């Protein structure tokens, strides 16, 4: 495997299409929300690909819905999973026996690890260096401070964001080819969905928080409801919350309604002091 980033474009998607994905990845975080995070931004960036692959309106709608599920990744490398998704959507559109669910499974499996690496590099390293150099100059009133600050951060940022698109697509399409050739597509899909599911489980625990601060008992015996519950099984409150929401969705409650219920619950909890 050589490290050239250029892949063969021998199916539907062209280099030009991927460039569009890159450009449309820029506003990725604009619509970042607490419910499904970068879902809308991701779909927005995928649009040109989906549009081309699915001429039928219904197929397109289904494809967009597929990408409107929760997604989160460091914005600067968002093009990498986008590229992979593009390759997988292409396979999905052109191959008969492609399991559509694997697109989401692979996306999910990549969320956590990519964010870990991306945050460490961009937020943890590059930003700190840019701030250090920029501020040293700016504190003396030098206009080069802000300028260097922006350049030091954004030159690598845009370079990697651009390259990521093609790297992701290349990796995706080559892997798909290989796996198809080996006749193991079924196993790999299953394996991918298992990893995806585990990562989603891990992130649910990692990124959701609920804290029942009601005190129980007084004096030395004092504890909170939260401690009691997590004493039985760590993560129990989050799991309970997740279970209830999952059940509401099963019961076909409108997500917007669920959100409102959660809002009311949160404010009531704050008002009566049982949540914190």
């Amino acid at each position, binding site marked *: 495997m050589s490290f050239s980033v250029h892949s063969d474009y021998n199916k539907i998607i062209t280099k030009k299409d991927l460039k569009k994905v890159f450009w449309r990845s820029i506003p990725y975080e604009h619509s970042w929300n607490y419910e499904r*995070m970068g879902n809308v931004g991701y779909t927005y960036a995928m649009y040109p690909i989906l549009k081309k692959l699915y001429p039928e309106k219904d197929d397109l709608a289904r494809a967009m819905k597929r990408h409107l599920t929760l997604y989160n990744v460091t914005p600067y490398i968002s093009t990498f999973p986008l590229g992979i998704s593009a390759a997988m959507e292409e396979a999905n559109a052109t191959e008969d026996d492609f399991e559509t669910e694997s697109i989401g499974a692979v996306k999910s499996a990549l969320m956590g690890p990519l964010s870990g690496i991306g945050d460490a590099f961009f937020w943890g390293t590059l930003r700190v260096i840019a701030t250090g150099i920029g501020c040293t100059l700016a504190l003396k009133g030098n206009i080069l401070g802000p300028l260097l600050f922006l350049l030091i951060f954004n030159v690598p940022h845009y370079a990697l964001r651009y390259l990521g698109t093609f790297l992701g697509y290349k990796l995706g399409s080559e892997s798909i080819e290989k796996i198809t050739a080996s006749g193991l597509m079924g196993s790999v899909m299953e394996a991918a969905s298992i990893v995806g599911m585990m990562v989603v489980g891990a992130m649910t625990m*990692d990124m959701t928080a609920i804290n029942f601060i009601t005190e129980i008992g007084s004096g030395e015996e004092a504890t909170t409801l939260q401690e009691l519950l997590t004493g039985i099984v760590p993560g129990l409150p989050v799991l309970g919350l997740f279970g209830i929401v999952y*059940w509401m969705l099963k019961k076909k409650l409108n997500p917007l309604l669920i959100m409102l219920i959660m809002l009311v619950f949160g404010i009531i909890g704050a008002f009566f002091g049982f949540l914190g």
Partner: protein
Amino acid sequence: MVLKTILVFLIGLLGYSEWLLGTSYIQRPIVLGPLVGLVMGDMQAGIIMGATLELAMIGAISVGAYNPPDLISGTILGVSLAISSGAGADAALTLGIPIATVMLAVDTALGQPIMLFFIHRCDKYAETGNIKAFNRCMFIAGYAQSIGGIICIPLAFYFGSDAVTKLLGNIPDFVQTGMDITAALLPALGFAMLAQTMMNKKVAPFFFIGFFLVAYFNISTTGAAVFSILMVLVMVMFGAFGKTGGDAAAIEAEVDGGDFDEF
């Protein structure tokens, strides 16, 4: 004054376009400071004050789910007030930070719910294939979350920030706390929606394995991913896949429509 107010408003708008423009750090104090300085006629001071705020706020970034104070309004009002009152960089700090904090409260309490409304519109328009409306809602959603700052920056600049801050300070505490709590609950909805698209009997246990790996051993999501990949590799090597496990099939048949669906 009106011209300056308009210019300050535009700087604010630029700041709130941060995420539209690639999360490129144009909203940071070190960048906005000089611009405000330029408007106020003392760019030098703007640069220095910006850098001062930048350093003081170096930890105020959003990684994961932490929500930092609203640096944009804080910087713009802090720096402009400090310059117009002839005070130094310290004043920009003392003025800017409380503003940033209050504005965060306003944005969570007001901006987030409005934003989520538009996010849900996007779902609808995706289904009907109305891509223009989809794009429009995305655009609005992004600014909606900063609605407080967008409105308050020019007002506060024009009427004096004291008056505005006081006004906003009247939002009861519990509302802000409640919004913060809700913000931490909301991912459960997102993950539940995601899980629903992926869930089936065969992979369901793995959701819980991932969940409890984090809950019991306090490892990172990346750690859970590492172990799940290794586990799956072992399963592949020892032929767990491919054969439609007789048992598993039987179970699926049996429990289908059973308890799990009710979960």
